[in-house]
């Protein structure tokens, strides 16, 4: 093999190995990219994870949106977790207060995390929460019960094609997970 060929072999090998390493990194880069894209395009039904501020806007009395509340508890979580009301009629722009009721049926201190999701996904960006228990983790002592508050308003810009918004919470048991914050009991 000539010296020239050996050199071009080496360059090509380095380039190809670097591409492979780069694609390994790209796989991980897809994780933040996914969140950014879902956020920017308003897809996937993810609601914002921090409180939005309520600017008093004109309440669109002519339009009524049905808001439905769903709750699910993962099978390893010995809690009940239910919305105060299952469905309500709201006008866009109206500030609404409701709550979910959680009770710990076990004899142990448990920490939960409720994860919200809005359906249809395109409506998520118009569902604004000024206060939500889901912004924090939920901790309950043995056999304790709590009302978990939720205050929200529907953006009047909500597309006309959407007349029903479903807000679903799934409650996960994160007591033994690494990411439990110090929650005030």
């Amino acid at each position, binding site marked *: 093999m000539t010296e020239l060929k050996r050199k071009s*072999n080496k360059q*090509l090998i380095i380039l*190809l*190995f670097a591409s*492979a390493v780069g*694609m390994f990194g790209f*796989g*991980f880069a897809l994780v933040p990219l996914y969140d950014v894209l879902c956020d920017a395009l308003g897809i996937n*039904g993810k609601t914002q994870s921090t409180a939005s501020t309520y600017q008093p806007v004109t309440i669109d009395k002519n339009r009524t949106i049905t808001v439905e509340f769903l709750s699910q508890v993962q099978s390893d979580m010995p809690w009940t977790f239910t919305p105060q009301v299952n469905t309500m009629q709201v006008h866009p722009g109206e500030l609404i207060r409701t709550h979910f009721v959680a009770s710990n049926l076990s004899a142990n201190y448990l920490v939960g995390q409720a994860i919200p999701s809005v359906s249809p996904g395109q409506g998520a960006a118009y569902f604004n929460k000024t206060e939500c228990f889901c912004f924090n983790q939920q901790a309950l002592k043995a056999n304790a019960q709590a009302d978990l508050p939720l205050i929200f308003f529907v953006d009047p810009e909500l597309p006309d094609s959407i007349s029903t918004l479903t807000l679903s919470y799934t409650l996960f048991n994160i007591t033994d997970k690494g*990411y439990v914050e110090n929650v005030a009991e």
Partner: protein
Amino acid sequence: MSTMTQDPSIAQNDHDDHHHGAPKGLMRWVLTTNHKDIGTLYLWFSFIMFLTGGAMAMVIRAELFQPGLQLVEPNFFNQMTTVHGLIMVFGAVMPAFTGLANWLIPMMIGAPDMALPRMNNWSFWILPFAFSILLSSLFMEGGGPNFGWTFYAPLSTTYSPDSTALFVFAVHIMGISSIMGAINVVVTIVNMRAPGMTWMKLPLFVWTWLITAFLLIAVMPVLAGVVTMVLTDKYFATSFFDAAGGGDPVMFQHIFWFFGHPEVYIMILPSFGIISAIVPAFSRKPLFGYASMVYATASIAILSFLVWAHHMFTTGMPVFAELFFMYCTMLIAVPTGVKVFNWVATMWRGSITFETPMLFAVAFIILFTIGGFSGLMLAITPADFQYHDTYFVVAHFHYVLVSGAIFSIMAAAYYWLPKWTGHMYSETLGRWHFWCSVISVNVLFFPMHFLGLAGMPRRIPDYAIQFADVNQIVSIGGFAFGLSQLIFLAVVIKCIRGGEKAPDKPWEGAEGLEWTIASPAPYHSFTTPPEVK
């Protein structure tokens, strides 16, 4: 055989013009850096894995022979479907193509060996370890992987058996092996072509493998990344796919299929190259539309990165995204159609003979096209909601992978066996193998379309009573197809041990540098590069 050239001046080409032959003993195979030895190792390994994964398919079909649970427990059934898929994809089809690449690419481009022979040895020899790890996990407490070969989170994270770490490491090793193999192929093709072997003179098998190698380098690392995320989610409390910690299980599917869709083209592009070699040889006409074949292959490879979410239509994507992926998927039918029409045009008015390689090649064209059509049906978003996760999907991908990829590998084996072994295979046995395979494969997979349309879900050990009759037919086809492959084993062993002496160029219409060297190919070939005009 009417087509074999029996020109005695070629047939008795001296076989002692190479300086030294292969070393002897077991260590020859462990230490070898010879592309032909490594090709042989890959091909045998792939065949052993094909039989292993096939045995698992037999367990699946035996359990599904009747409704109700008869032979195995549901958890073991799930392990069978999972490991069957993993073994067939990573252990049978991909190593078979790498084996063919090792044997053929240097001989086709007039190179003495692969560019990186020692790495070549490594890329093969880590594979047996990967599959030993994977298979050993089946015998561990809690069992092996049972979450499907697609290992969707949270099945592979929250609900997976304790042996999942072994599955992850096995996939890592398979990935490293594939990436090293792909780098070797690219460097060989780019730098080791004989003088005068310009890009547009490359045989199509070389072209399709070059493009496949780029796909491998692009997506195998993504697979390594996603299994690593599964590993850390399960064992190290990260939450890439755990919604409780801010992750998203649907994201798993996006990352997985970003790898997974190019992967299915990795498993079919080299087939296109094989068929493009065999069809002209037995039609005694040059390939119709060579340049369009090259461009079509490249287009398929590029489009393969834009269609991954068609596996996920039912995850609740926005309609716009569903339509985008639907149209991109349908677009792939265009370059694929170019290829199919080119093969048919090559046969048009050719003087065709139907030796075993050609039989498999023709069956490939027809049956792969059927698989392609059901793929188009699956691409239609609204219809997909009915087909999703049913036996229709199982029928679709088995048509393109078994009667597609596997048939092309069989065709390649028959076509080049005389060059590899120096003997002609038994044409009678070869035809028996073909006809048994082609009939049983259709009995096996065609009725699955109807099962799927009637609503039978995939990956279940038991089913509703109305599916019983068709499942029985399918299982009989499955057993027949499995047994038929033993004929192939017999043909290969018989061919290695003896048989009619093969001339340098046993097929009248064959083209390419590999037919200019002796049969069997000497241990070292093209030590001085040929001049390609």
